[in-house]
């Protein structure tokens, strides 16, 4: 767990890749990509192990049990596409319903899942809480207090033993980008041009993994 402060809010980056805002009793996860293997099979015929939705929800369950948030925001691309979302097996939709029970739950729309699904909770393009705004894709500057996902950032750290690459949070004075939470998700390195131009020079990265570790955002 790595506490940090962002635009006046005291936040905690969890090693799992979820973001906790204790003052608001809010947990945020981004890019779950539920139903990805089903979509890949449908679109390309490739039959990957169909267990990523189980695994993603198992990890989400663990975070929810540990922190019992009242509010949950899923920051977009929660479903790999609307059809995958609409055709979840019953045991999965039941599970999602159980996770949502007793909390306020917001589905932010992403580029993969732009429309509402029949799962309850509220469905929005973006949401503001206190001085923070939650949306799926970071907007061009100027912004303030923007929390987004979409890019699946990952950072490489050259240690004396080896180079370690892990999904990471990125933040500077105005922006925070969450890592992808879903099991079948790749990553975009922090040295990619898009992330370089989005984030300010003094941006930092918080690596996920066994523990959350903060470093200056790797630039090369």
């Amino acid at each position, binding site marked *: 767990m790595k506490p940090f402060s962002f635009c006046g809010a005291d936040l905690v980056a969890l090693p799992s890749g979820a973001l906790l805002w204790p003052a608001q009793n809010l947990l945020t996860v981004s890019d779950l990509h539920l139903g990805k293997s089903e979509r890949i*099979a449908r679109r390309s*015929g490739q039959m990957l*192990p*169909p267990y990523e939705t189980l695994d993603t929800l198992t990890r989400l369950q663990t975070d929810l049990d540990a922190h019992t948030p009242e509010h949950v925001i899923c920051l977009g691309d929660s479903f790999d596409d609307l059809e995958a979302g609409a055709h979840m097996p019953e045991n999965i939709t039941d599970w999602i319903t159980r996770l949502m029970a007793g909390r306020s739950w917001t589905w932010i729309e992403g580029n993969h899942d732009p429309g509402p699904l029949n799962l309850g909770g509220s469905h929005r393009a973006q949401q503001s809480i206190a001085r923070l705004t939650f949306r799926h894709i970071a907007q061009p500057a100027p912004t303030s207090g923007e929390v987004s996902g979409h890019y699946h950032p990952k950072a490489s750290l050259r240690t004396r033993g080896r180079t370690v690459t892990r999904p990471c949070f990125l933040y500077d004075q105005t922006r925070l980008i969450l890592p992808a939470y879903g099991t079948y998700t790749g990553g975009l390195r922090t040295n990619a041009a898009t992330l370089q131009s989005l984030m300010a020079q003094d941006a930092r990265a918080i690596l996920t993994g066994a523990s959350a570790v903060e470093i200056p955002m790797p630039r090369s």
Partner: protein
Amino acid sequence: MTQLPQPLHDWFAARGWEIHPHQQAMLDAAHAPSTLLIAPTGGGKTMAGFLPTLADLHMSPRAGLHTLYISPLKALAADIKRNLRTPVEEIGMDIRIEDRSGDTTYTQKRKQRADPPHILLTTPESLALLLSYEDAPRIFNGLQRVVVDEIHALAESKRGDQLMLGLSRLQALAPDLRRVGLSATVEDPEAIARFLAYHPQPTKIIHADPGPAPDISMLETDVAPPWSGGGGRYAIPAVLEQVKQHNTTLIFHNTRAQAEIFFHHLWLANEDQLPIGIHHGSLAREQRMKVEQAMVEGSLKAIVCTGSLDLGIDWGDVDLVIQIGAPKNVKRLVQRIGRANHRYNAPSKALLVPANRFEIVECKAALDAVKEHDLDGEEPRSKGPRDVLCQHILASAASGPFAADDLYGEVITAGPYAKLTRDDFDRCLDFCATGGYALRAYDRYQRIVERDGKWQLRDPRSAAQIRMNIGTIIDTEMLKVRLKGRRGGSALGEVEEAFASTLSQGDTFLIGGQIVRYEGLNEMTVEVTRRASDNPKVAVFSGTKFANTTQLSQRIMRLLQQDSWPDLPAHTAQWLTLQRERSKLPEPSRLLIESFPQDSREYTVIYGFAGRNAMQTLGLLLTQRMEEQGLGPLGFLATDYATMIWSLQPVSDATPLFKMDNLRQGLEDWLAGNAVMKRTFRASAIISGLIDRMTRGKRKSGRQATFSSDILYDTLRKYDPDHLMLDITREEAMKGLIDFGRIEEMITRTRGAIDHLQLDRVTPLAAPLFLEIGRVPIKGAAEERLVAEEASLLMAKAGLE
């Protein structure tokens, strides 16, 4: 005795040639279902393989594909085409000979399918692709003969397994098909014969006269080789001298990186401007073609090369082979030497250049082995890998509907799959159809479905995807290197993606013998500029890890046991004496272990001399125990004679690491999570069609969409531990390891006889290990510590926290 047809006989006679006994024997065996010819390079082996074809086409000319020739190398097929055309044209036979590979143009390929030549020269992959087309029955139904060249090399890899499945398909399309295998000298011809056979029919083995023994020696130099160090730079003046004295010299290296460095320094010392080229698999195709052309024209004095030239290409006037670095494998050495002097009945000449003093000991042992005709034993071929079978099933479906019984019947006629059970076959079939998961999630998306008793593609469009994935060679992900310039610049070659990711702007490295400066990554291309620099970083290629055989390790151990070494150069004898003074020399009934610090890490070396597979297993076992004891193991490396482990904390007492109790406890989990398994899984997942091959175009589009196969592996382990792919991964990974029985035996044998020495620096015997390739990283608690350590350094440096 079958007579050679008159025109062929006359052609031989006109050149003053006489048919070799083994060529006559091949002619006599023309009707055997399967024939294996064992002959040295240069013994007219290829001609022997084609004589029955030429004779048959002379006696009864006909249209259509008559003979298929398969070689592991594209270059070899092109070369054979040249050599075969000469007699055909001079005799005036009406025979069309064409080659087909990834380099053949699209138009030419289409033409070949519509109107096949009499003789088609191709590779296992191109054949598999041809067989996956709907018109395969029409192309192949008149096929008479198939000639598999360099079968000893193919038999060692999945390419050979795929080829044998291909032959089983061909045999079903052309039941009269006869097979011929051409092999270099091997230890166990019977094993190759079983591999080639159309089961249950036998293979006839024909041995050619092995020719005179090769003339091999160590190159004498004025300068003593270093203790440690690869690449043999010290020997450059002596090597140049040899190049001057011979017509054409091939200079072999064990890795591409070593070839690059050597080539660079060779040119720095090449005052006479001798024309010397470089050739290896990572160079751009245009560059390789240029060198190959120059070689054929005889305009090069020497070529610095790696295994890409390893097989029997008959190129002009090579009269000397120089092997830099220990040959590691006696069989490989003899085959490489076969390249020199392609004149039958003249001894081949070769020089060994050990790169360091340990390699002198290795070379000495190898020379003794060659002298005593003690070729390394081959690993007995285990059953054919099932990932290759899965690919074959899918490719068969792409070609047309099949009945499961028929396909199974075909598959078990192939040597590697002769013992495949119906159960195993059905599991592979189920995997191809549904993914084979315990959770039946894909019923709607099945790739192949059974209709009216025949399996076929559910969606015919998927044939294209299946064809794209054909092949068993798994490349490391490579990036193209180009000189930065206005229109794309010229291609220099490729480097591993992992290497490219360690470069920052301004870093220099060697490629194609040039020093270049890294400028940046443009899409999927590494852009560089030419830059002179004295100390370039070197492009690292993982390369192939050669294994010595146990026999060679045993010879080395016996050499080390001598009181003195009058047969070795004085500097090497002194070096061994120094090892004896500073530490000890390994003994057969004891186990020598050295621990010492080096570069802010702690090293432990175990000299087990049990062969690489056993030493690799030992590395896995010991790192597990070290992890439990909190010593923070970071990785290990196994060679044929030693395992070297590096860790954060020193091993102060090695004895408890070797306690027999609980040796196997928790090992399965540890093994399953290891990098060796993940690498194996990736390869098998690609071959079996679970994941698509990464094409360049695909990697270009949306990087964050792709995720590593490690994730799939971990997910399967967690949710579907009995899945076929995990089964295959275990089976394949175990081919590079050995059963724990042999480790336990080694530990028992040396119980209470462990000599664990704590030293303050690296020892003479350990020094060469630092240059070995094939490191296995350990992802344990040490990684977390390293990350935390580096993170706080970076934060402090940035003035944060």
